[in-house]
């Protein structure tokens, strides 16, 4: 399949702990898929493995037929798979616009020499990248903060800025690690709109999220992890009723009540 992310048997161990245990699932083109699970379920580790920030112990993950696992993270980005972080990794002293400009790095090419000599190609590329960054800032609603340093932006806007930066890499697949963490209700509603807008631009989204309201609202499909293993997969209405999921979230005692 062209735009499918196929995760197969991905396993990651840290010493004796199996952080991700033989996880398999598919994400189809144009879908919003959520990965949920209690704390320590291995969601972020799974993201790290998929994006090259961690090496897996077993398994494969292909996107559009190309293997992602074992590649360096910057090469994964060049294959059209971008991510954000649970704790934002912004360039604090750079403005919002500059942060997003860095994201265009993957698809621009002017290096030290062409920049040093101010070749017309480098100049043109810079102008296009700058326009693209402005477009993406508008897309996530940060146009007015264009020249604000990342360090001076409130938490909710920082998350949107990181999404804009990830979009600047021109991804086909976007992995968002807890984009709603720390957002208030209004901001979360705004985030849902942004996610739809991104999806409508043809970007497939995988989102790790704890905010169940957001997850149930936006996702087409949900994968549930518990202690590293996949315990359920399906559309939101079925996941909500799944006994294994309820057990994982509420604990065994609660079920006995």
């Amino acid at each position: 399949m062209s735009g499918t992310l196929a995760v197969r048997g991905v396993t990651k161990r840290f010493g004796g702990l199996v952080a991700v245990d033989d996880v398999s699932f598919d994400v189809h083109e144009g879908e919003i898929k959520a990965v949920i699970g209690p704390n320590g379920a291995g969601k972020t580790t799974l993201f790290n493995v998929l994006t090259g920030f961690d090496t897996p112990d077993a398994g494969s993950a292909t996107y559009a037929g190309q293997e992602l696992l074992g590649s360096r993270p910057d090469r994964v980005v060049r294959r059209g798979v971008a991510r954000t972080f649970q704790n934002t990794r912004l360039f604090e002293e750079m403005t919002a616009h500059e942060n997003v400009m860095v994201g265009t790095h993957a698809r621009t090419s002017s290096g030290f020499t062409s920049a040093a000599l101010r070749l017309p190609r480098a100049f043109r590329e810079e102008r296009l990248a700058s326009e693209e960054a402005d477009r993406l800032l508008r897309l996530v609603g940060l146009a007015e903060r264009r020249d604000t340093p990342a360090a001076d932006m409130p938490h909710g806007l920082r998350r949107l800025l990181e999404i804009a930066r990830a979009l600047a890499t021109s991804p086909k697949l976007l992995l968002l690690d807890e984009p709603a963490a720390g957002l208030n209700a209004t901001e979360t509603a705004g985030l849902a709109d942004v996610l739809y807008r991104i999806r409508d631009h043809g970007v497939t989204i995988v989102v790790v999220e704890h905010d169940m309201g957001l997850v149930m609202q936006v996702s087409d499909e949900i994968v549930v992890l518990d202690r590293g293993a996949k315990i359920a997969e399906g559309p939101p209405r079925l996941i909500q009723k799944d006994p294994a999921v309820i057990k994982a979230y509420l604990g065994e005692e609660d079920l006995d009540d």
Partner: protein
Amino acid sequence: MGRAALLRYVPGAVVALFFAALPLLATGSDARYVLKVFTFVGVNALVVLGLALLFGYAGQVSLGHAAFFGLGAYTSAYLTTRLELPWIIGLLAAVLVTAIGGMLLALPSLRLKGHYLAMATLGFGEIMHVAFVEASGITGGPDGFSRIPLAALGGFVFESPQAKYWLVWGAVAVGFIIAGNIVSGRPGRSMLALHGSEQGAVASGVDITGLKVRVFTASAVYAGVAGCLYAHVVGFISPSSFTLHNSVIFVAMAVLGGGRSLAGPVAAALILTLAGFADAVFPGLSRETLAVIQDWQADLYGLIIISVMLLAPAGFAGLYRAGLRSVGVKL
């Protein structure tokens, strides 16, 4: 031109004009000496421009830049003095050798950060210093090289103090423009990103391994060219000019100058270099006063550095930006 644009470009133009015209302004009995001192300022400025790229933009520390300075000087001195090759060959060889050296030094930087990287580069500097002393067959040992031929280009020999001054400051101007173009474009942005967050940079598709190698290489070449110019301007080099002390002074200039700036570090190079030659700025200074200043030079440096770090931790560049902001210029 708007006021903001005026404030942004006019100071630079005035400074450039001043340095270009200095040989014409400096007249009288002290002129030769003043020009010589300002030629040293230019040599240091060139090294510090490279360090500004590495440290001020990419956030990578090097306590071994005197080694590149020396590598450039020795490479060119050997080729022109022993093998009697033309100066331009010496210069090109200095560029090549220091570029390779920069790539090699980049290797530890791929794995090490912060203090650990500083230690590794310090080790590199010490190794090179020992090599300059011990490889006496090539370097002339502790005595170094003397009678290094003057720089010459197409029959023109850079012999007068004016010619030497213009040669060095011409190189500074070219180096400044090249560095300015690099930092204002895509590579500069990725360097700042690397400084800001390595993971963020990687997630944006920046090949940080390749970037670190390129920045270290570019930075080493700046020091190498400066070393070559130094050797052919002074005509004599010895290992004592390429010690840890020199490396530390270069870093001090870069820190004093401030991050994300090229002009700041050059200004710092000017002030710290002149601090050692106060009589070039104040011609009336008595010999006794000068001797006192030179005896206390290291302390003077320390004092300047501590004061600036206390009063203006963002360095000269930070002070300048704060000044612009206070008169209402939006940066």
